[in-house]
């Protein structure tokens, strides 16, 4: 058996592996972008009390945190699959097949990490003193300016922390990714699925190498998370 470091370097040597790692990186990057946008929008909306449908949205966002990933994946497959109500409509109207493709992987990463971004962002918005937006209003600022220049810099650390957690969660996601991506070699196998496939086929060396890589990335994220917690406010 090669040393872990040699196995790790071997990972980058073959085009198939590089494709798998590039796919994982693309899912992670696109997922982080979606998490940032939806985390801010949903966190802000959920922090505002007294509107209809708030509780329903709160449940929908929080559900992936407590629901088994495999079961969530199965429900999403029923919904987005070719014969699913939403999947069929998407296929018919836009020609998009959301499952067993990159979009399936992205949906899995997005759903898995969403509560980890939304919840801290929501809590941060809720904990901001009401007087901050009020003071900005009396200074002649509109709601968009207040959001960008007053609220956002003050919840920045919560957003960054949530994004790091969500990225870590989506990198390690297997159950939903398998359901929605289909685990198709060369097309929808991400790093976590690759570990699973390597273990089931007895290739422990490969599983160790990919695990080491994911472990290094996760450690980096953990370091960022700790640094972010001590970061000053503002941009």
């Amino acid at each position: 058996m090669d040393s872990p470091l040699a196995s790790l370097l071997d990972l980058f040597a073959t085009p198939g592996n590089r494709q798998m790692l590039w796919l994982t990186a693309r899912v992670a990057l696109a997922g982080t972008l979606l998490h940032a946008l939806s985390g801010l929008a949903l966190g802000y909306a959920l922090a505002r009390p007294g509107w209809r449908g708030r509780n329903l949205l709160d449940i929908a966002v929080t559900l992936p945190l407590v629901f088994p990933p495999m079961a969530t994946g199965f429900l999403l497959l029923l919904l987005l699959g070719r014969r699913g109500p939403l999947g069929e409509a998407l296929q018919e109207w836009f020609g998009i097949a959301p499952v067993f493709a990159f979009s399936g992987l992205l949906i899995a990463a997005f759903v898995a990490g969403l509560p980890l971004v939304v919840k801290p962002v929501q809590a941060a918005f809720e904990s901001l003193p009401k007087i901050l937006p009020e003071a900005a209003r009396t200074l002649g600022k509109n709601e968009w300016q207040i959001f960008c220049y007053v609220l956002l810099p003050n919840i920045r650390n919560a957003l960054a922390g949530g994004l790091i957690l969500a990225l870590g969660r989506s990198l390690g996601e297997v159950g939903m990714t398998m359901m929605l991506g289909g685990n198709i070699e060369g097309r929808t196998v991400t790093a976590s699925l690759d570990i699973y496939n390597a273990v089931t086929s007895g290739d422990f060396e490969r599983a160790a190498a990919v695990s080491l890589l994911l472990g290094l990335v996760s450690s980096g994220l953990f370091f960022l998370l700790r640094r972010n917690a001590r970061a000053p406010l503002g941009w």
Partner: protein
Amino acid sequence: MTVLPTEPAPGELFFALRKPLNFASGEALLDVSLRLPPGQWLALQGPSGAGKTTLLRLLAGLETAAEGVIRAGDEIWLDSRRGSCLPTRLRRAGMVFQELGLFPHMSARRQVDFARRPESKALPTAQLLELVGLEKLAERYPAELSGGQKQRLALARTLASAPRLLLLDEPLSALDPQLRRSMQTLLQEVRASALVDYAILVSHDLDEACQLAARIVRLQRGQVCGDAPTDRPHPHLSLIKETSCTSSAACC
């Protein structure tokens, strides 16, 4: 409701506002109608729960009146009968809050810069910071400033937004006597420099109110129960003096 004036005097601030007030001890109705000639500073006094802060918030547009009119010179900020209500950001009513509301992520200079309106005729940022004695602390954040420095920054920030109406909600309440005196001097300078058209300040301290304002109005359970100039003897002023306390004893 208080009778509305038929002929507004030129440039005056006029408001007649009505809003239910909720106390732990029951309900009352804020029903206040006042006129301020240009340049006048008015001090509001009254026990806790009299409606002083609510009145300031109504004028700033941070709360909605059940019924009312606010007219600042030729600008109509609120006319509930016609269904018109100017949003807070367009009213040019600058407010120094009791809790200050400084933005924790902005330096003193950034706070003042941020508050400037594009068409602002307010003093330049450096001059405003100098006016409040913070020119050497311009790059400090609120967490790095003392209580008095924060108060002064909140005032500079509000003045940077070039308000027509300056609202001061107990601006000196949290300060020690020495800082209080220096802030009083600063507010007197602001008053003398005519940076704002009108000002209304809430103060529990009668001497302070007499120093800073040309007129004192006493509120009790949402109603005006005393209105007196501070520069000459007036029967209402002695009434205000007699009842100037924070208890809820009736004065009307």
